[in-house]
């Protein structure tokens, strides 16, 4: 295969232009899906409110057949902090999966290779920003919805932007891993759903809402969002510094986990892409 090299100045321009186009395209797609917010937001508000009283209460259900459904401000605040980053991950992964699958099926994925950008960057560039925008809107509406029913209290400081930025990178990494799997196996929506719920369940050990077995906590440290969630909890509820290097949710471990997931995502995507290219199945179904 012969590849054309771009003159440097034009190369940079076309590079930026391609990124801009991808972002614009993804934002247009996201706008066309705005009605989904009507379904997503109320569901997430109800989950956030009702999950708290259920956690660790199985024995009570068996003995009395019911639960104490009173809403605690503290628990709801923690659950909001648990849900908001997970939302980002969920939206990033599901949107990435379904759009990529659609592009594979309709054959437009092959066109990605006409772009001067690396294929993995084309895959995440626009979608990442579109999903981030949607997540911010959903998280804002979630906050407003939950706040309307129960007061939420946490020490919000600008420093939380660091763990939030890292969660975005981790989400991109996870979504690229899923994208890599999609390139090889394609029809895996149930696996995607299973992985998402397992990540959600695994992350429960990052926040003190229920006592989990020790092995669960140990395993949970390897889950994508746990260390960042622990850091967020420390900052928002314990007044810890976001840059504390060591300890649970420490900056160093947080950076390592983020880098590992992002690198694993890029590698998984490239591996999946390589297999799909070898099979000639980037578009064939």
């Amino acid at each position: 295969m012969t590849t054309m090299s771009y003159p440097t100045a034009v190369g940079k321009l076309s590079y930026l232009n391609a990124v801009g186009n991808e972002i614009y395209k993804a934002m247009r797609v996201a706008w066309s899906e705005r009605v989904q917010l009507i379904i997503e937001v109320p569901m997430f508000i109800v989950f956030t409110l009702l999950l708290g009283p259920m956690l660790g209460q199985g024995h009570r259900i068996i003995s009395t057949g019911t639960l104490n459904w009173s809403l605690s401000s503290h628990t709801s605040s923690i659950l909001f902090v648990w849900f908001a980053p997970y939302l980002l991950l969920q939206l990033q992964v599901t949107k990435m999966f379904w759009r990529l699958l659609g592009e594979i099926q309709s054959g437009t994925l092959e066109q990605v290779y006409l772009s001067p950008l690396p294929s993995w960057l084309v895959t995440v560039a626009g979608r990442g920003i579109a999903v981030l925008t949607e997540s911010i809107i959903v998280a804002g509406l979630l906050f407003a919805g939950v706040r309307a029913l129960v007061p939420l209290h946490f020490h919000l400081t600008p420093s939380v932007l660091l763990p939030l930025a890292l969660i975005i990178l981790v989400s991109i990494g996870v979504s690229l891993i899923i994208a890599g799997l999609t390139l090889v196996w394609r029809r895996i929506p149930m696996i995607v759903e299973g992985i998402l719920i397992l990540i959600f369940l695994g992350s429960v050990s990052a926040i003190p809402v229920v006592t989990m077995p020790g092995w669960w906590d140990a395993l949970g440290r390897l889950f994508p969002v746990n260390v960042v969630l622990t850091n967020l909890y420390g900052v928002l509820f314990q007044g810890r510094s976001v840059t504390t290097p060591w300890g649970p949710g420490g900056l160093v471990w947080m950076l390592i986990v983020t880098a590992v997931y992002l690198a694993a995502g890029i590698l998984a995507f490239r591996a999946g892409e390589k297999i799909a290219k070898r099979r000639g199945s980037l578009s064939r179904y």
Partner: protein
Amino acid sequence: MTAIPSPLGGPWATTKLQARLTANETTKGLRLLQGRWRSAFVAAAGLALVFMGFSIVVGGGFDRPLMALTLPELMAVAIAQTAALQGVGGIAEEINGGTLEQSQLGPAPHSVHIAGRLAALAVEGLVMAAALGAGFALAFRLHFHLNPAVLIPALLTVADALGYGLIMTALTVRISSTGATVHVLNMAIVFFGGMLVPSTAFPHGVEIFARFVPTTLGTQVSNTILSGHPLSAAWNNGTLPWLIVHVIVLLTLGWAIYVTFMRRARREGGLSPR
């Protein structure tokens, strides 16, 4: 448009042809499943892990009485999830691949396509549900009052889950991004249907809302029978009649949306990639 009269003969011949076409659709769906049995196996394993995870998070460990109450919903979720996600994935594949247009060239009416599609999804979901149900019941020695009457709510729950899957499948014909929304709706089924805690433990208002969610009523009726009550108890407390109504409404709604959106897509050229 010029219509060519069918050379098929009388109504009996038409019925036979439709049965054969339905069987063909079902066989096609099952052959496609055969091609992705590994991912179906991994999905079932994932669902098993999710069930155990929820048991620990809600029950504080493997609380067997709680697991016995939530296992029927796990089985229902397996069917609903399969019907919705594979239904949406299947029709999206046909739209994007252009084969949905081709299917309109055949003599099969919409009802045949729907029946064939649902039958294949039902088999896939039922195999997964049966494996999960039997696996957990045996592994954790869960105790149930087994009564053949439980087959009635079980069948109705399957129909309910398929109705939900059909609605999602039909929506995909019109709204290409339905797939991502299905994940949120599936979470709602897991949450309200009774896989975390039985839906009867919800506050009254939430329980009423939960009963509108697919599979919730089916699981409530199944749990009534599996806890030793006769079928008449479910009839008397109103859950069984509402389950029947729920199934009829979901299937009718799914069918109506499917037919409407297919007609509209044909008119507007929306059967191929948008």
